[in-house]
């Protein structure tokens, strides 16, 4: 039997790292093939080789039995391969429609035909059941919707083979289910899908077969029905992994964060956070659950100081910080892991050393007076790299050479190492492998037990439920309910996230319905 794709003995080396080491990888026609492995295992690299973006140092690729050599991704696109990349490659200032059709714009008299662009996009968005507003600008959208645009962009080029590099990393569970529907309908029309993910739930739910990589090597390929998450985790990490972390009772102390009647606007000057009051004690984790785009980002940015509060008050240990600058707030003991790590969390073109000192570059021993201590900076970086197991050949490389998961560890390392009074973590394990998730969760709990107040924002219900001591549900910029961590059920939270509370009434007022509609078209 000939395979749709066969990669034989693929080797790809980067300076200091063997990203792919003699990998064999075969995909059957019409199957959904999951590709899993730790952060930095070489998944993206292997797919970039298949997509023609990297030339392998050794090995051959066969498509439908025919040996091919891709010099660039034009060659692979010509063979019907499409890819959605892990990190966004959209133009923030362009609209959805412009992004999707970029480079393939229908034209009239040599000019871009704006109406046709919109129509095409509406057409394919209908056809694949992925709702987007063709006229919204990318920079104004939540990450979840941006990812949807990425997928549409790949589908627009009509491929027979679709590579999805961690497409669900940024999607909410509902959006993930929708994506699965799309993928299944694509497969029904004969398209082959390679699906990279860190979530075993998704592997089990959607794939026909699954291949595991570790440290750049092929570990095994299994029929999904013959394996289970525990086995996959063991193959990936090389040891037993705790899939659900055991957590000790919280021991809450004095109140650290107090937010009172906070109101914050989003980029379009709409009220994204309407009237939020909450509090977090030292030694406690407050989880914020909610469907993405209900004000989570603005809440976090309001507390850290990137957005001004239109109304309300934010206090740390009783002292109001509402008027303070970001720096003052940081110095006052706030740290934050932001949701969009590529944009806010790191400077991609700066070295790891530079990235790791943004929090403490103005404090001893990193600097003395005006002068930086380069030796201490290098030591600081090496210490965090080893403590947080960041996989990189050196602390001098620029951040963009790191794999997605390792980049997240850079941000976490820096923010947790600052030993904050209040630690805000937004989507902390997005894109991380099981081993790293376990590790990050342990670090967050450690921070809590050390006495930090932790505000956890996550679209992963499972994560919120397993980590939080209390859970507040955010819906349309308001907190619609708070429950104890141990007592919440998924159904209960799910209902609240949809805006339905105990009183049995739908929280949407007419204004919010309007907003909802404008987001969904």
């Amino acid at each position, binding site marked *: 039997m000939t395979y749709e794709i066969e990669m034989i003995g693929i080797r790809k080396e980067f*300076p*200091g790292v063997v990203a792919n080491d003699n990998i064999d990888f075969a995909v059957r026609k019409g199957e959904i093939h999951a590709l899993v492995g730790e952060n930095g295992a070489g998944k993206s690299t292997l797919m970039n080789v298949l997509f023609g973006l990297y030339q392998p140092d050794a090995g051959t690729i066969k498509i439908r039995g025919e040996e091919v050599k891709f010099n*660039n*991704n*034009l060659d692979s*696109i010509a063979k019907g391969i499409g890819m959605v990349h892990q990190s966004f*490659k959209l133009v923030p*200032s362009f*609209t959805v429609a412009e992004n999707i059709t*970029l*480079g*393939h*714009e229908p*034209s009239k008299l*040599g*000019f*871009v035909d*704006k109406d046709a662009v919109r129509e095409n996009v509406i057409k394919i968005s209908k056809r694949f059941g992925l709702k987007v507003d063709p006229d919204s600008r990318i920079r104004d959208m939540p990450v979840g919707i941006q990812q949807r645009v990425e997928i549409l962009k790949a589908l627009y*080029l009509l491929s027979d083979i679709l590579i999805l590099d961690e497409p669900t990393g940024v999607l909410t569970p509902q959006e993930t289910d929708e994506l699965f529907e799309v993928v299944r309908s694509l497969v029904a029309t004969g398209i082959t899908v390679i699906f990279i993910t860190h979530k075993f739930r998704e592997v089990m739910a959607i794939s026909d077969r699954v291949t595991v990589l570790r440290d750049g090597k092929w570990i095994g390929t299994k029929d999904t029905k013959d394996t289970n998450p525990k086995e996959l985790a063991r193959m990936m990490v090389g040891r037993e992994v705790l899939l659900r972390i055991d957590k000790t009772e919280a021991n809450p102390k004095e109140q650290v964060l107090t937010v009172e009647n906070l109101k914050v606007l989003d980029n379009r000057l709409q009220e994204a956070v309407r009237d939020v009051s909450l509090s977090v004690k030292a030694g406690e984790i407050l989880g914020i659950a909610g469907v993405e785009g209900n004000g989570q980002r603005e809440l976090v940015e309001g507390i*850290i*100081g*990137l957005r001004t509060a239109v109304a309300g008050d934010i206090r740390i240990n009783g002292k109001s910080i509402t008027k303070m*600058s*970001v*720096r*003052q*707030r*940081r*110095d006052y003991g706030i740290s*934050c892991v*932001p949701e969009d790590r590529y*944009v*806010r*969390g*790191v*400077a*991609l*073109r*700066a070295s790891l050393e*530079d990235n790791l*000192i*943004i*929090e403490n*570059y*103005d404090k001893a021993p990193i*600097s003395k007076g*005006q*002068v*930086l201590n*380069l030796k201490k900076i290098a030591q600081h970086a090496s210490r965090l790299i080893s403590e947080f197991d960041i996989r990189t*050949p*050196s602390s*001098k*490389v620029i951040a963009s050479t790191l794999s997605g998961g390792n980049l997240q560890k850079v941000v976490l390392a820096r923010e947790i190492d600052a030993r904050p009074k209040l630690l805000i973590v937004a989507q902390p394990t997005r894109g991380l492998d099981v081993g790293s998730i376990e590790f990050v969760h342990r670090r967050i709990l450690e921070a809590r037990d050390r006495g930090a107040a932790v505000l956890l924002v996550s679209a992963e219900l499972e994560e919120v439920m397993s980590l939080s001591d209390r859970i507040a549900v955010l819906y349309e910029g308001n907190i619609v309910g708070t429950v104890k961590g141990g007592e919440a059920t998924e159904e209960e939270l799910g209902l609240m996230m949809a805006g339905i509370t105990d009183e049995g009434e739908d929280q949407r007022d007419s204004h919010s319905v309007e907003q909802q509609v404008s987001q969904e078209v």
Partner: protein
Amino acid sequence: MPSKTTKTSVLLKSSQMFKLILMQLSGLFRKSLNVIMAILAAAVVGSILMLIVGRNPFVVYRLLFQNAFGSERALFITMQRATPLIFTAISSSIAFRTGVFNVGVEGQFFIGAIAGTFVGYAFQLPMILHLPLSLLAGFLGGAAWAYIPTLMRQKLGISEIITTIMTNYIATFLISWLTNYPMRETPLVAETPIVQNTARIPQFVNLNPNLAKGTQAHLGIFIALAVVIITWYIFKYTKLGYQWRMVGLSALFSEFGGINMDKTFIGGMLVSGGIAGLGGVVEILGVWRRYKDLFATGFGFKGNLASLLGGQSIIGSTIAAIFYGGLEAGALGLEWSTGIPRQLIDIVVGLIIFFMAAQGMWSFLNKLKLKNGKPGEGMMAFVKRMFTPKRKEETL
């Protein structure tokens, strides 16, 4: 047994380090290769131009080189031409690296020059005070001129790209007026009085008549080199430099990290303007000794080019400024000895920049093309987008 494993791991580590170093070197090499390729391409096109006007390019290039670097005298002329360009190149690079668009280096240079000239002729002071004060006036003049666009962005939100260009024109008119009316010395020519002896930067010939004979090279080069070393040190070793670099690399990240964006913008702009102004006053006090209206133009633009040529790094743009100065010195000599107009060199430098930009453009278009399918399509899309009318919100 354990010692063996550690040994191999050390070996492995050092081989990795070696590869890493090699990678960084090759990065550097590729960058300079780009520049060298651009220079070669420009030289080829330049040769064609020379052939068209009936000159032998080999002879011309040999003379050019000789007049730039071929003798002691040539070297001093090169030094004199390079001195102001080092200031303006560093000024541009500081702006680039801090994420500020300072297209106003030209105007800041001349405002600094006129401010320093004024202090230089209007006061009677001992040299130990007079010279530093005049230099300070130049620095402050340039910085003050850069403060206008800074304010306009901070208060009114107008992009500094536009306002710095505007202030260049205003500077020209303002100085014309100053040299024609309030500061004019004689009715005959539009020029200021000559600066006092105590405010002059000594020329090499003043120190030793045999040194640098027949050139106007002056000790201002040491001020330029001091500025180079100080800015290099600031960028690499200080907190301020770290803030500047980070803002230049990613504004959003820096904001998140708590760097004060306003302060960085204002600081970058003022220091960039100040160094441009310092370059202006050094040029006056070292070479001209008085401000003649329209004594020269283009220092700012040439500095911008040198900064681009040098990859916007401090050291790189210094080297590029010296190279540019050498070309100018060579072209001057060429004009004297062969009558070839020195504008030819401006064309060659223009071509170098063009080819460098073209390389960047080419890889940019290539990427577009690769991302989007058929070859050439990216270019079409790009061109089309340039001509597509902007949406309303964007033009607002």
